[in-house]
């Protein structure tokens, strides 16, 4: 357990010390099987074959095409990095980057907080827990395209569901500016907090009760237990949840497109504009690559955070 214990976990964390499952105790027929190293390669191959085939080609393709000029859909001159210079000097691009990052920071933070509350509720033992779990999952099972339409109606001024339910008067949520940003944040928050909740719930489930018992015996309050036991042991799940929520939020398209008719211009909305609405493949490919680089960079930071906890030393054992 020691090398999988997150940093900062209290030294008092005890080994679960549980016996191996019964099946493992039965004598196995002798035979080495594959070496662990070979097994590792064999285990990784299927995943990387599938992902490589599907993901690598489009990225290389877009990167290549982004070096050319286009006349409608026809590739014309090689222009090198000129398309990147165009985008990186365009105020519109930076405005989309800003909107996208602001959206990601705000919505992922809110989703994380509420997701954590959801996970703690789902993890708690109380009467009616099953109903509560079903209720918490409801938002997540609504297809995003439908959720977008739904929130559009909810925020619209006629008949003004949100405005009337909350007694807000006639707020023009979806018209422009900050209110439109918040409307989309709220819709995304509602839709995906259960995603975070589910991931964290699974993480909570792997924390052995013994650890809590030990802390309780030491006289720790709920808050102390949460801060000193739960959070550190949950770190890997938290990082995974934040990583995938961020990656998703950085590509936000559907909600912004449906709820505001693309007035909330995120990076993906901008990219879709030059792919479908008024096709300019040079801009489209450049934006795709830039988006890719940006998200990958943020992803690498998360992986670096996670790597220490999860992966351990690269060349251990054998």
């Amino acid at each position: 357990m020691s090398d999988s214990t997150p940093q900062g976990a209290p030294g008092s964390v005890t080994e679960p010390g549980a016996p191996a499952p019964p099946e493992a105790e039965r004598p196995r027929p002798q035979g080495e099987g594959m070496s662990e190293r070979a097994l590792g390669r064999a285990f990784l191959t299927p995943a990387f074959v599938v992902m490589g085939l599907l993901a690598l080609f489009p990225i290389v393709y877009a990167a290549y095409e982004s070096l050319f000029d286009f006349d409608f859909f026809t590739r014309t001159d090689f222009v090198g990095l000129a398309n990147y210079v165009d985008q990186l000097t365009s105020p519109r691009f930076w405005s989309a980057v800003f909107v996208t990052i602001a959206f990601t920071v705000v919505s992922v933070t809110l989703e994380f907080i509420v997701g954590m509350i959801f996970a703690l509720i789902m993890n708690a033992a109380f009467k009616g827990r099953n109903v509560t779990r079903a209720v918490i999952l409801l938002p997540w099972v609504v297809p995003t395209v439908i959720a977008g339409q739904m929130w559009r109606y909810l925020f619209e001024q006629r008949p003004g569901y949100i405005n009337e339910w909350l007694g807000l008067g006639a707020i023009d949520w979806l018209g422009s500016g900050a209110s439109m940003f918040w409307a989309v944040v709220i819709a995304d928050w509602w839709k995906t907090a259960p995603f975070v909740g589910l991931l964290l719930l699974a993480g909570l489930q792997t924390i052995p009760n013994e650890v809590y018992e030990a802390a309780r015996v030491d006289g720790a309050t709920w808050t102390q237990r949460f801060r000193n036991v739960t959070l550190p042991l949950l770190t890997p799940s938290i990082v995974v949840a934040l990583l995938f929520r961020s990656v998703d939020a950085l590509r936000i398209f559907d909600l912004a497109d449906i709820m505001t008719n693309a007035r909330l211009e995120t990076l993906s909305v901008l990219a879709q504009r030059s792919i479908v609405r008024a096709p300019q493949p040079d801009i489209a490919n450049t934006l795709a690559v830039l988006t890719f680089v940006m998200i990958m960079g943020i992803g690498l930071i998360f992986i670096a955070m996670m790597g220490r906890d999860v992966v351990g030393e690269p060349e251990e054992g054998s």
Partner: protein
Amino acid sequence: MAATADTGPAPPQAAPQKAGGLRNDPRVQMGGQLLGLAVVFAWCIFPFLWMVMVSFQGTVALRDANIFGGPFTTGNYTRVFEEGFMWNLGNSIFVALSTTVISILVASLAAYAIARLPIAYKFTILAGTLVATVFPPVSLVPPLFVAFNALGQLNTYQAMIIPYVALTLPLSIFILTTFFATIPKEMEEAAKVDGATPFQTFVRVVVPLAAPGVFAAAILVFVYAVNEYLIAFSLASGDPNVMTVTVAIATLDRVGFEEPIGTITAASTIVSIPLIIFALAAQRWIVSGLTAGGVKG
């Protein structure tokens, strides 16, 4: 009005304010918990309830913020059934199920290798895993279209299942890696001592112990696959026999610019039922996973 009327269990009267010890008063704690639960219920349910109510009222529900006004009708559901929606639902479940099984199987192998086996460049491998999930989906579609068209596989189940597997593998691998990593090494050692091969150790010890992670990943993958629209529409909307629910909802019958909100919400409500069943069932196993895996047994 409606917002306060139906927010789950009514919170008990707030306890009288006291100068000290308020937070430790069990009645206050209880009340606070119930109030919190009521907020959670309202937050999660209301938009969903709106959808269900519109599906039973059609456009009348769009005239008044009171969504319980009626008159109610089941006409939208009849129409949705008449348009063959249940067939699409069957397609969606089939596609999502196949995706989930393949994605989880492939991902558990890879995750085990990353978390447990002595391979080099783990950081690079994890980073490489992420690549598949960070490209804007709308830019993925044209190359995929070229590939599946060249293989003559457009408008088939596999035109959805294969991309879905590839796009959900990163999430599955990351979740499973973290869960495999938390399993005590000693249990594996014990199995090895008993003469199990590494593969047997993986199947019989590691996977059951990581059950919460396996099922959490399974729910997320399944829900993703049912709710995916762009690829389903781009690669597999040409054949009504394989069309999935999201595409079917987008192409529900309408006259001119009419937004058939009644049938759209009815169809969405129908879709949510198997999803909730799957999620609830899988969630039970998240919670019972450790027990089943043998930690306490």
